[in-house]
Structure formats: structure tokens, C-alpha cells
């Protein structure tokens, strides 16, 4: 069954004809408006409380949190964590935020590439943290290919406190302001 036939069936079922320009415009306006639906009250909080909620929900989802005072502490923190897991290598996004750090003292081997079968750990940044459910939102781009997110057994994710938002709706709106990603997850 072709797409045209499917659409024709739907129109017939709804008792509609081919939409007029005005009807099309109404739909386009509605899509452009991106109006919010019901938003849970849980995460509509001041930012400090959103951060606490994010930590609590993330931990509940079995993530491990390591808090750093500055991004410069990241290489040592990664190295320590990898050592506790008996891992001596990891793959890393070629994200400028990460590439600009001093990795010279890190014992684990670091490679910047897409993930492959057998990779045990990947390091990327995150676009946003969502306090409502402790969710991380990432998007694919040339310097952070999406395979880093889900192929390796362990995913180390850098999230700045300022990027913790209350609910998904806020994150989608921020996401809409950046260039179209191939995937967002």
C-alpha cells in the first residue's frame, strides 16, 4: 500500500478532503508553536533543587556520579575510575571541550574514533541533564558520533551543572536552537 493510499484512507476515515491552504497553514502554525502539553510539577523547581533532583534520579537509575570542581580535574577522574574497573583504554569524543584538556598524565590509552565492537568505555559530553527523571540528553555530530553513546559497556558522560534543566520540554527547546543532529538520545 502506497503512502498516498494510506493518506487517502485516513482522509476518508476522518471525512476530510485534500486540505485547503488555510487548513495547511493552521497545522503548520500549530507545529511551529511547539506548545507544551502537561508538564509534571516535580521538576518545576529553582535550579539548585533541580540539581539535587537530578542527582537523586540519576542515582536511582543506577548511574554513578562523580562531582568535580572544574573540568581540568576530568582526566585524573577518568583515569581513576577506569583503574577501579580494571580498564586500561577508552575511546573519546573529539569534542573541543575534551580535546583542550591535559591528558598527558593519564595511564589509560585514549583514542578518538567511532565505537567498535569490544570497546569497553567511552567518554563524551552531554547536551543537557533532565532533572525530572535523571536523564542525559546527547546529540550526534561530527566530533561526537552516536556510536559512542551505546556501543561500549561503560559510558562516561560530562555534564555541567549549568546544563541541568527541569523537564524535557526545556531540553527540546534548547535542542531546537542548534543545528539539526542526526540523532538525539
Amino acid at each position: 500500500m502506497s503512502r498516498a493510499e494510506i493518506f487517502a484512507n485516513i482522509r476518508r476515515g476522518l471525512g476530510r478532503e485534500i486540505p485547503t491552504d488555510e487548513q495547511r497553514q493552521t497545522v503548520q502554525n500549530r507545529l511551529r508553536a511547539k506548545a507544551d502539553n502537561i508538564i509534571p510539577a516535580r521538576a518545576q523547581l529553582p535550579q539548585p533543587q533541580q540539581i539535587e533532583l537530578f542527582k537523586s534520579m540519576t542515582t536511582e537509575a543506577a548511574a554513578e556520579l562523580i562531582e568535580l570542581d572544574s573540568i581540568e580535574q576530568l582526566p585524573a577522574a577518568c583515569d581513576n575510575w577506569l583503574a577501579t574497573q580494571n580498564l586500561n583504554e577508552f575511546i573519546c569524543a573529539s569534542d573541543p571541550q575534551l580535546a583542550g584538556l591535559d591528558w598527558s598524565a593519564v595511564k589509560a590509552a585514549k583514542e578518538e574514533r567511532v565505537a567498535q565492537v569490544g570497546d569497553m568505555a567511552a567518554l563524551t559530553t552531554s547536551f543537557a541533564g533532565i532533572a525530572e527523571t535523571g536523564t542525559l540528553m546527547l546529540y550526534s555530530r561530527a566530533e561526537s558520533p552516536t556510536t559512542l553513546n551505546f556501543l561500549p559497556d561503560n559510558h562516561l558522560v560530562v555534564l555541567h551543572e549549568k546544563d541541568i534543566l527541569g523537564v524535557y520540554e526545556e531540553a527540546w527547546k534548547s535542542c531546537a536552537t542548534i543545528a539539526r543532529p542526526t540523532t538525539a538520545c
Partner: protein
Amino acid sequence: MTLFLRLLARSATGQEFTVYNTLSSGPRREGDQDGPENFHVVLVDNGRSEMVGSQFQEMLRCIRCSACMNHCPVYGAVGGHSYGWVYPGPMGSVLTPKMIGIEKGAALPNASTFCGKCESVCPVRIPLPKLMRHWREDEFSKHLTPKQPAMALAAGHSWPSVRHCTGSSPSFPAGV
């Protein structure tokens, strides 16, 4: 979309959110290190568009969360394979006859106690017992109801007990 993502995991497993969601927007762009070379969207209709405007239209709201199955006493007793096709549980009892025809799938909407739990837990408020009742009516109007249950109905006996005694089972095409 976010509303339905919230409903999905909470109604399915009681989790706060699905562990992993991916939104794909197209093939890889120039410079991307991975991602698909081509991106295709395949619409699988399988009779669904014909449900629009019919008495089964409400079934199209289903988000496949499985809340109806989690609470169904029949599904809990017989398990998913007993439904004999892709969709088990109360939602399968409504969808399957649409896909394979009431002639072959009539046993499914009949194997319900109509306790109403499925409707009460459905996050998108699909009136599943009402839709199963439509299938029973359809079966009856097409004179497909087996003789014994039809006679029992006429005589005022309880339907499920007689259905059980007749040993009726779904009749599915070979290989499904």
C-alpha cells in the same frame, strides 16, 4: 511526544523513563564519522488506516506499553504465546481480528472476562472491553458464532463456561 514518552515507561514497567530513546532525523551529514548512509521511513499500514473512522478507531491510540497485559487475568493465566499472533493481551484481542479477520481470530475477543482492568489502567484510555464487544457482535452478525455457544446464549447459559467446554481455540493461518 514527551507526554507519550512519560506515559510509556511508567505504564509498562513502572520505570521513570525508558532506559534509552533515540530520535533519528536523517542520514549522516558530511563530516559525520558514523550514522546511516541512507535513511528510509517505512509505513506499515496492515489495515490500520482503515480503522480510522470505524468503531475501532480508538485502538489506534495504543502506544504498546503493555499495561493492559500486566493487569489482565486472562493474559496472566494463559501467557502471550496463546494469543497466536504478534499482539498479545487485551490490545491483541482487538487488533488481531482486524489483521487476520474475525473468521480466524474470533476466539480472542471472546476469551475475556470483561473485568475492565485493561480499560482502567490504559494510559491513553482505550475502551478495550467495548472494542472486544464490537468484535463479538461482528462475529454474531456474520453467523460465525459456533453452534453450541449460540444455542447456549439463546438458552441463557454463561458464555465463557460453554466456550470452555467446546474446546474452541483460535484458528490461525499456518506459520503464525
